[in-house]
């Protein structure tokens, strides 16, 4: 059996500022199989983007610092690689799409050239061949090949995001990390882009990490879901497990606080309070202050990771065994 595509273990990433330390990622571990789509869900400041950046080893250092942990891509630890090796992997094996299509393209280069650049960098091919492949890639993301020589400002937001995706997928990477790829776009455009990403992912046999705050996007694109809260993975499982049998009180709260499109709800049920300040995380469960089911035990220790069913892990003191399920019913 082949190695897992991605294995992150006990990753801790801090941002060390002059007078405070932002504990962005706190002991995250998970694995990913080939061909899978993993959704990472969390609120602003939950550490989703930092987690993604550390997989690419793009966390700016300083102020960022990987305190401990490993990120194994195909069995090789990305965090201990030489700079040169890392550069060979970026764009070829893993690539990333950022949230804002307006700023992630170079405004003074034609879109065609920007796609070609990645191809020439990683594939041993002639310029003419690179042009053909770049044009092919443009057409795959739904942009006519004639627009090869146009500049980013001549494209709309949705079209630019397509170009960004074309660049990311030009060398058919094994893993694509998409950081809120559709948040800046309108819903009808979002639907087009998500549809296209799903199709391309299947065609190129790429695995994908989809970072989002939108549970709807997760439901439509992902196989596995990881819920992040205050830098920790609080729950992890298949889409089916998370959407049908959420266990962590935070996940449950997230679902409850969403306004529904088909049910009449008089009042929403928000999660009370706020996420703790990532510079002042408590020593106990970080969800304690907002949790409706918190008990004294939660204050005493770090929550253990329990596995209520195979492949479904929860980091919660109250989720050991059947106790919680009864409380729910």
């Amino acid at each position, binding site marked *: 059996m082949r190695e897992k595509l991605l294995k992150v273990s006990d990753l801790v990433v801090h941002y060390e500022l002059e007078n405070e330390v932002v504990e962005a990622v706190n*002991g995250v571990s998970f694995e990913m199989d080939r061909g899978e789509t993993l959704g990472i869900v969390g609120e602003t400041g939950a550490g989703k983007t930092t987690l993604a950046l550390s997989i690419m080893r793009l966390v700016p250092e300083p102020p960022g610092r990987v305190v401990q942990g490993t990120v194994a891509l195909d069995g090789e630890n990305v965090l201990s690689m030489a700079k040169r090796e890392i550069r060979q992997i970026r764009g070829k094996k893993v690539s990333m799409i950022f949230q804002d299509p307006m700023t992630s393209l170079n405004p003074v280069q034609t879109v065609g050239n920007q796609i070609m650049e990645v191809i020439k960098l990683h594939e041993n091919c002639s310029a003419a061949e690179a042009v053909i492949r770049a044009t092919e890639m443009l057409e795959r993301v739904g942009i006519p090949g004639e627009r090869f020589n146009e500049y980013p400002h001549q494209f709309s937001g949705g079209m630019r995001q397509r170009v960004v995706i074309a660049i990311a997928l030009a060398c058919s990477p094994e893993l694509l990390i998409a950081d809120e790829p559709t948040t800046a776009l309108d819903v009808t455009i979002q639907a087009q882009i998500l549809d296209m990403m799903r199709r391309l992912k299947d065609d190129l046999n790429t695995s994908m990490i989809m970072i989002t705050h939108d549970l709807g996007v997760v439901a439509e694109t992902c196989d596995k879901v990881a819920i992040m809260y205050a830098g920790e993975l609080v729950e992890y499982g298949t889409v089916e497990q998370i959407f049908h049998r959420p266990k962590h009180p935070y996940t449950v709260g997230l679902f409850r606080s969403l306004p529904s499109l088909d049910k009449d709800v008089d009042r929403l049920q928000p999660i009370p309070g706020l996420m703790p300040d990532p510079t002042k995380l408590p020593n106990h469960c970080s969800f304690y202050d907002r949790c409706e089911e918190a008990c004294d035990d939660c204050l005493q220790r770090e929550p253990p990771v329990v596995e209520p069913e195979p492949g479904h892990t929860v980091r919660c003191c109250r989720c050991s065994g059947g106790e919680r399920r009864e409380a729910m019913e």
Partner: protein
Amino acid sequence: MAKRITPATERAARIAAKERSTSPVSPAKAAWRRLRRNKAAMAAGVVIVILLICAVFPAQLAPYGFDEQNYAVAFTAPYKEYPLGTDNLGRDILSRIIWGSRMSLIIGIVSVVVGLLLGGILGAVAAFYGGRVDDVIMRVMDVFLAIPNMLLALGIAASLGTGLWNLLLAIAISNVPRFARIVRSSVMTNKSMEFVEAATAIGASNGRLIFKHLLPNSLAPIIVQGTIGIASGILCACGLSFLGLGIQPPTAEWGMMLSSARQYIRSNWWMVTFPGITIMLAIGCFNLLGDGLRDALDPRMKG
């Protein structure tokens, strides 16, 4: 989750313990805290405070008067009684530097304040009303900007005559276009912010918009440029005095001290060295403080 203790978390905890306060921190207070951590800027600040004290109390601090001549000790190299030596007329150089700080700082500060008031009002009006008004004001400013600062001041001093007030006026006027630009761009940025629209929506008048909402938020770059402007004002005054178009003898002024000492540069090194070092120090410190203020006031460092 157990906290992971690293050297950085320990340091942060120390700083947090020192600055622990439950009271809210205003943006100005937060900026002051950041400035205090910048050692170079704080050192520059101390030097500037010393210069200010010299400028306010020269009579008390200087061992001799600025025009106290003693031919018996002319051209004395630095020693105990004259720590920085004496000049060709037997005047104590240290005393003249201390007295000279008064002139230099008055010129530096007053020219910036006047330039800022005029330039600030013009810039704010241009940015707030836009269109025609903006065009007219800024084109006139462009004409002024096209003339080098020193040349403009030189022209004004030459046509109006020498003396402190004309010198002040000359430097202040040459400052106006620069400050007008800075204030304009700063106000323009803030004008597009939603909080200005929000203030309009609650019925705020134009005056209130400009003075309560726009200007206070445009202060940061103005303070920074003002501090650096003091340095260039001092330099400009020294330059004009060196050329004989500024302060007239016997008043002590750094640039003039240099000018009258230049013939003795080979035989009496102290006559040019110490005023020169003073000018360098004063300008360097204002620039350092300006840079420090820029870092402290930069909203991206907010925290």
